[in-house]
């Protein structure tokens, strides 16, 4: 059909839906993708819930906890669909975790975690902000990097 973009269904893998428009590339950069995996990134797709959204499809891939936590930081309303044999067998919404261990870098250059071999640790506080366990600075999720 003219003007319609056809993306092949995946047999086995993960579809990450409801990513805020424009954040799909960021989500893709978070994922550790094997060389043989098929990846599709759909941007600015019409969405009833979000107006427009991005979608990422990856074949032969199940996300680990660290990846899910990072996705929750950039796309807090994302949905993870696990596909097996062409069927959705599991559907989960991501949630901002209470604590982040080794997930994000501390934006404070003077923090010990940026200067010694110390695993980062953040704890969630009000308004979805995260406090560094070490330097005690409070950050919005948009300030955290990976």
């Amino acid at each position: 059909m003219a003007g319609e973009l056809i993306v092949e269904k995946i047999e086995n893998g993960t579809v990450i839906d409801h990513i805020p428009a424009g954040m799909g590339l960021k989500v893709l950069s978070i994922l550790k993708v094997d060389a043989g995996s098929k990846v599709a990134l759909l941007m600015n797709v019409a969405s009833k819930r979000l107006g427009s959204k991005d979608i990422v499809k990856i074949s032969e891939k199940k996300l680990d906890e660290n990846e899910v936590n990072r996705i929750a930081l950039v796309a807090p309303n994302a949905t993870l669909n696990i596909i097996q044999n062409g069927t959705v067998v599991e559907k989960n919404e991501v949630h901002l975790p209470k604590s982040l261990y080794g997930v994000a870098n501390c934006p404070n250059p003077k923090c010990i975690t940026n200067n010694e071999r110390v695993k980062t640790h953040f704890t969630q506080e009000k308004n979805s902000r995260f406090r560094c366990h070490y330097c005690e600075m409070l950050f919005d999720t948009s300030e955290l990097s990976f």
Partner: protein
Amino acid sequence: MLRGKDIISIRDLEKSDIEFLLKRADEMNVALASGKRLDLLQGKIIATIFFEPSTRTKMSFQSAIKLLGGQNLNFSSIESSSMKKGENLADTLRMIDGYSSLLIIRHALEGSARYAAEICEHPVINAGDGGNQHPTQTLLDLFTINKMKGRIRGLNVSLVGDLKHARTMRSLLYGLAMFNANITLISPPGLEMSKKIVDEVRERFGANIMEHTTMDLSDADVAYICRIQKERFADPYEAEMAQRSFRVTKDVLKGVKDDLILLHPLPKVDEIAPEIDNTKYAKYFEQAKLGVPMRMALIAEVLGV
């Protein structure tokens, strides 16, 4: 109450912990005044590990250790240690942990004391970690105010100067709010306390906090002054102007309450005119002296003696 605990941040302390420390510091102060010999730390070795320069904090800790009858192991510079050969911070701390019952650490990196506490078996006291926390300064500040005014609750306390960069002010704001003081933040435009910190303290304690950009101490019971960090300004002229408008002079003190007390964490440079040192308002040297009984109290409590 605090036996075996690490003292890393004012956030880690409950109001009841601080009230207890204020009482114990007062007892230490009375004992010092009476010349009573205190041998609470007999046989104990306490390490002071200062990676950054310090006069008051380091010497008052060392003085507190000696007055309690303890021995002091002193690490004073990277140049004279195995860190010069490339040993990392963690290994250095683990070694010192093996030689002492308590570690008192100052380091430029923020979070260094928390990290030290995680890798050391013995308790750790934070003596300043970069721009983050300096909990023992806050404790001695609260002790000073409580001792000189008989209370903290309901006092009008003005925090004056470069509130953006001064770590003592952040911790003190937290401590004052915990004790329900009425707080006024006075700083030059651009050097205000971080909004995140002010909002957090308001939310957590329901604190009454006002913010001003001009120096007016007429309602203050306590004025806590800190230096304008001129090195943070791109334009030296702007820095000079900010310092001039925030300098405590005899003119600034006209019309203040008769029993106003002026405090300062020291070292002071030119934010308080020299003629103020001899006025009845100047209490900062007494404040520095009170660091000893407060640190004695803290060491004794952490070691459970």
